[in-house]
């Protein structure tokens, strides 16, 4: 994931957006026959949905012209906001019949353009499908309509001592439907996994209106595990309307320790040693000096001025927390930390997290930056950090590193000056080099944001043609006419023949 964030409230623009300066961003040309039939298509949709659930006025469809990757904009043909699985199925049957592409949309928080429309497409928004359908503590699950927001799932059960584990940073706004589409993660993946590990069942509507019930209140699939391939398919295989989610009893408590080092490599080695020692922290966050300084200026969290800083959080009973923190401290001491600050109270915990949580805002105050989202093997951290530092010198651009070190999901921020000619181009070349490095050391292009339109054309860096072909075959089966979110994930050259057919 490469996203460019510009300072002083400017739009988030992406790596591909920059490249578009040289070559226009490619999206399939809208089908003139569909554009010409807009009135008839809208009329059919209005026959099965109430008037307020079909948006077709050109000024109103603009509200759906982009997701959180705001650089790419294109108002859709129309927007539908169904309330039930039956309405979703009816909409899809009409669009299937008319040959109209459909772009499913959760809350529109995708940073990869997953919900970007084309002019001839219908946006199917699930935001009105937000009911909590069932809470079952004895079976440790909840069933929700998929438009429900991530945080509101946990909020609904927190009072009874439960939580829903995946917690992407957009959790206040993002929908479960989008979480399933992008197999969302969050800060606690090392211990609790990502969406696919916490999803028990889903109601999925195929492009032709067929309704599939996959999984349910039980723990494994009767036949092929189709749910696993729905999760992370970026809304290309079906529209998820309901989901059964695993909830967990909340831990008794959690406490972080802050560890400061004089070298990023040593900090990386310390992460590996903690994991090797059999400790499973609930989060391991990493920040380097440029990031620490920016956060310190911004949030005054009281961080030491050092090359690299780890925040390691453990949870459990009071005795278990004390024990794990003691083990972590002992490991850290072998790496000569310049400071080791164990939280002893709620307030100290809050202060330790304060800077980290304001990192992105703080960086935006001082610079334009490009944020990447690749994953690497944790053991490659020292090597990757060293290579990034070398590349930083070669490209003449500073990098600030802040990321989930425990699961290897990196978010290097490349700092640049948008007003300085040539800076942008160097920045994008640097970003691409870092992503290639992630793949080269055994990692991947995107850890938690998805491919969307943004990294579509980089897929060939990670996958051989036959690997991509195997994935495309799956779409052939679920959506033979390639009408559902068709211009995403795959390089357009690969999907072209299928979309045209």
């Amino acid at each position, binding site marked *: 994931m490469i996203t460019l964030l510009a300072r002083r409230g400017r739009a988030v623009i992406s790596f591909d957006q920059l490249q578009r300066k040289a070559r226009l961003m490619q999206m399939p040309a809208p089908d003139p026959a569909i554009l010409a039939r807009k009135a008839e298509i809208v009329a059919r949709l209005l026959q099965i949905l109430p008037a307020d659930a079909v948006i077709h006025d050109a000024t109103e469809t603009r509200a759906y012209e982009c997701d959180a990757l705001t650089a790419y904009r294109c108002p859709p043909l129309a927007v539908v906001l169904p309330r039930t699985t039956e309405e979703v199925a009816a909409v899809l049957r009409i669009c299937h019949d008319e040959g109209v592409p459909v772009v499913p949309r959760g809350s529109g928080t995708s940073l990869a353009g997953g919900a970007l429309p084309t002019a001839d497409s219908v946006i199917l928004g699930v935001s009105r499908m937000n009911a909590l359908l069932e809470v079952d503590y*004895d*079976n*440790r699950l909840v069933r929700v309509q998929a438009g429900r927001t991530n945080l509101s799932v946990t909020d609904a059960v927190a009072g009874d*001592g439960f939580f829903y584990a995946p917690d992407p940073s957009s959790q206040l706004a993002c929908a479960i439907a989008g979480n399933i589409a992008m*197999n969302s993660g969050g800060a606690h*993946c090392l211990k609790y996994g990502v969406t696919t*590990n916490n999803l028990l069942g889903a109601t999925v509507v195929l492009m032709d209106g067929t309704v*599939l*019930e996959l999984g*349910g*209140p*039980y*723990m*494994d699939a*009767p*036949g*092929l*595990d*189709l749910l*696993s*391939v729905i*999760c*992370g*398919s970026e809304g290309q295989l079906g529209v998820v309307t309901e989901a059964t989610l695993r909830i967990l*009893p909340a831990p008794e408590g959690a406490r972080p320790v802050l560890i400061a080092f004089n070298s990023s490599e040593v900090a990386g080695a310390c992460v*590996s*040693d903690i*994991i090797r020692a*059999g*400790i499973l922290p609930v989060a391991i966050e990493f920040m380097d000096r440029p990031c620490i300084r920016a956060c310190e200026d911004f949030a005054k969290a009281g961080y030491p001025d050092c090359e690299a800083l780890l925040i390691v959080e453990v949870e459990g*009973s009071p*005795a*278990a927390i004390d*024990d*794990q923190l003691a*083990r972590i401290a002992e490991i850290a001491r072998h790496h000569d930390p310049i400071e080791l600050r164990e939280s002893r109270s709620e307030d100290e915990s809050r202060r330790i997290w304060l800077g980290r949580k304001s990192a992105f805002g703080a960086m935006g105050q001082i610079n334009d930056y490009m944020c990447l989202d690749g*994953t690497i*093997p*944790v*053991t490659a951290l020292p090597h990757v950090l060293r290579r990034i530092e070398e590349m930083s010198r070669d490209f003449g651009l500073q990098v600030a590193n802040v990321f989930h070190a425990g*699961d*290897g999901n990196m978010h290097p921020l490349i700092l640049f000056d948008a007003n300085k000619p040539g800076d942008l181009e160097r920045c994008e070349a640097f970003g691409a080099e870092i992503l290639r490095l992630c793949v080269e050391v*055994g990692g*991947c292009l995107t*850890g938690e944001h998805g*491919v969307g339109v943004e990294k579509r054309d980089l*897929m060939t860096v*990670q*996958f*051989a043609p*036959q*690997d*991509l072909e*195997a*994935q495309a*075959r*799956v779409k*052939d*089966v679920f959506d033979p006419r390639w009408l559902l979110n068709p211009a995403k*994930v795959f390089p357009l050259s690969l999907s072209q023949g299928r979309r045209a057919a």
Partner: protein
Amino acid sequence: MMQVATVDDLAEVIRSAQGPLRIQGGGTRPVGNPVVGSPLQVGLRGITLYEPGALTLVAQAGTPLAEIDAVLADHAQHLPFEPMDHRALMGTGGEPTLGGMVAANASGPRRLRAGACRDSLIGVQFVDGTGTAIRNGGRVMKNVTGYDLARLMAGSHGTLGVLTEVAFKLLPRPEKVTTLILPGLDAPTAVAAMAAALRTPFEVTGAGWAGGNVMLRIEGFATSVADRAERLAAALARFGRAELAAADPWPALRDVTGFAGREGDVWRLSVAPTDAAQVAGRIEGEVILDWGGGLIWALVPPGTDLRGQLGSIRGHATLVRAAPETRAALGAFHPEPQPVAAIAAGLRARFDPRGILNPGLMA
């Protein structure tokens, strides 16, 4: 028996196959409908990569599980899903392999907390029915680059492709394990006791019932295990006085050894845990519960159709052990609703267009 030791050889064998192939790893898990075909054994062996500091293992699909377990034990790590060993129950010999384990999505009692085999699986390489070698996923635990075909392969019993390499996220092996026993409970009370235990924050990693005893497992660092076990026992006081298990009961529960070598068919039912009491009550036979009730093992007279007895209860029943003619008659796997079955058939047709990989095993 044809054995292949490289990806290229496997691809060539599949490309040139004139008829159905019966794919197997160690041949220890003959689950599914009987398959007629030339036996093909995956002989690719060895660990490709093991990085304890990254909790990552990549190995060839034909590698014996015992070999993997020994290597991981040296670094106090393990495959957290506690894969079932089918040999005792099925009366088979041979060595369970990594690939066979993935093909069966074999998971044990810790599935409750740590997820199934498919949850730990982060990457695969396989050869499909056209003889094409395909990679998916990788070796990192956070990866949304493209569709997740790795987990689709888990539990597909060799019907979509033949696994050649698999990658896992590992977890630390617990330093200390303690098991509490609540003796003398009937099925409904046992299910209630397990649900109560699993609602506590004490991180119960196993909850089963056999021979009237509820078993609850607490594990982790020694310093906190005793404390959590004690508080769990107190929280469950209404179900009786918890005892510490003298011996480790989990391997027997995992492998269902209680039904090994005994007359009768063995069924495996997957239901919502709280439905287990009702289902168990309908079964005329012997019942063992795992996953807090979510997994029911039943030993019933030969030829019994247990599937019909689920009634309106949501879930599915697999006929794991029975005479070939019973498996052929009843079907080993639970019939799926038509739209789901159509997608599954579509995927098989795309990945195995000639229908030569374990044809008919799952449907």
